[in-house]
């Protein structure tokens, strides 16, 4: 599950949603506030890696140059 704040997965045992990584600039409290169910939050939550310069170039210049979906 990829949102505009975080990446979430599902716990192998309980099958319930678990935070995998937090996007840079997103705050953990905002994720909790904007989730309608109790989210499992591990002790260590790594940041979601930013796109590389080459990924940004491809996205902005070739894949969606007019910002139809990337806005």
């Amino acid at each position: 599950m990829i949102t505009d704040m975080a990446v979430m997965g599902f716990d192998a045992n309980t099958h319930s949603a678990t935070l995998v990584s937090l996007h840079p600039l997103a705050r953990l409290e905002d994720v909790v506030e904007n989730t309608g169910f109790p989210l499992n939050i591990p002790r260590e939550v790594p940041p979601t890696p930013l796109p590389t310069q080459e990924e940004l170039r491809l996205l902005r210049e070739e894949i969606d140059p007019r910002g139809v979906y990337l806005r």
Partner: protein
Amino acid sequence: MTEVLASEIMAAAGARELRDGEVVVVGLGLPQVACVLAQRTHAPRLSALLEIGVMNMSPIDTAVGLADPRIWYRATCWSGFLDVMGMNVHRGVVDVGFLGALEIDRFGNINTTLVKDDSGKVRYVNGSAGGNDIASHAKRVIMIMRHEKRKLPEAVGGNWACAAAVHIA
């Protein structure tokens, strides 16, 4: 390079979930953008399937719908919905279903069919189309959506039975 958008982080995160050589049924919007990004970086042998029957395309522009020929460029197969659903999804050869959703609950049940607003009025959305089949049969399912409380409820469909709910956990 200007500030990175949340949608760009989402597209890159989605692309990194895909592995080279995988068969991916891809939905329109950010899933399709992420899929093309994966193909042009670490996954050149990834096979993308559109629900309407177009496969292995090399999009030359951003599509506004699945039936938009700008993303069908150089496709290797032009068949139909039943071929994608039957010969691919139901045969179990699809590695990843990459979809959007209206609601997902804490156990990964997906709703793309209808929601009730606060006044109790029902709003129909155009899913699930193949979403149920794809989420049920693909080996992995990746969902992309905005992070909002109402889109991530305790249980999909509010207090009533939701026919399109599927399980991805």
